[in-house]
């Protein structure tokens, strides 16, 4: 029996495609943001509020991933920007190949900002690089504030954590101070924003973050 060293990543193929995507985004000046959260934390709502605030003609596009249905794409298409649904048909995450395929019919140099809404799941999407420039994790205050400790792999790779639905804070036992401490423990470098899509609180700061380098 011979032992052959094999030093490469298991998801080599995904990482190769993601590196190609990243290089393409860089070349065309596209800022790509990957949004990850558990189901129901408000990713689609956040995107709706974001698109609603953009002026017409802005070069924004959205990819939205779900296991089934194109409901999210229908919701997002109302704002007049190109939207494409990726239906994974059972897969619990988006991978780089799905993004490559979904982008195939768009002009790569026609998009300045590409927002990717991942499949609602706090575990699996974290392993799959999509070529994004920044990764956002959304955590709503109706969830447990200890989610960063329960799902460290996902929070550890976050550039920004959006704490959503903060208008509900008076009605839920969520402790903002603990949530911030847990995020800092798992990912000290992540920025943190508190947002309510219902009242609009924090949306300006979020838009400013989205616009950075865009």
């Amino acid at each position: 029996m011979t032992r052959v060293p094999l030093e490469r990543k298991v998801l080599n193929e995904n990482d190769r495609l993601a590196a190609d995507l990243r290089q393409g985004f860089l070349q065309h000046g596209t800022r790509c943001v990957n949004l990850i959260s558990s189901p129901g934390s408000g990713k689609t709502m956040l995107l709706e509020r974001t698109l609603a605030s953009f002026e017409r003609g802005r070069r924004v596009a959205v990819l939205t991933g779900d296991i089934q249905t194109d409901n999210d794409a229908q919701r997002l298409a109302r704002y007049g920007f190109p939207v494409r649904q990726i239906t994974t048909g059972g897969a619990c995450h988006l991978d780089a190949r799905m993004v490559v395929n979904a982008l195939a019919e768009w002009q790569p140099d026609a998009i300045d900002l590409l927002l990717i809404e991942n499949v609602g799941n706090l575990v699996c999407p974290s392993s799959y690089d999509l070529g994004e420039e920044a990764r956002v994790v959304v955590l709503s205050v109706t969830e447990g504030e200890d989610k960063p400790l329960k799902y460290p792999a996902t929070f550890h790779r976050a550039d920004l954590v959006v704490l959503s639905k903060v208008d509900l804070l008076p009605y839920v036992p969520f402790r903002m101070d603990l949530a911030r401490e847990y995020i800092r423990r798992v990912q000290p470098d992540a920025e943190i924003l508190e947002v309510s899509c219902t009242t609009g609180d924090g949306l300006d700061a979020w838009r400013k973050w989205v616009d950075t380098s865009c």
Partner: protein
Amino acid sequence: MHEMSIAASMLEAVRAESARHNAHVLAVGVKIGELSGVDSESLRFCFDVLVQDTDLAPLSLEIERLAWRNRCRQCAQDFTVQEYRTECPQCGSAETETTSGRELEFAYMEIAET
């Protein structure tokens, strides 16, 4: 539950190595970091299910788990992160960076002598 697609990616690599050496692969060694988001038991289960009754059998999976380790940007101390405590145990600085724990990598393959 993405361990099934990860196991499938591993088997693709095993097939490629097997073809390259024109020999049966007996074992594959992988390194899995604590922060990789991959559950070892679930991966082992999916791996065995996919290998079963194929020409790849017998094929064993050897998993090395790697701890989450950080290095201090101030005093360069290396340490294992326990209980999510990412601050430096030596100088107390919060400025630390992860050096290990995200791995999802192959380490080796054991190939039958021909």
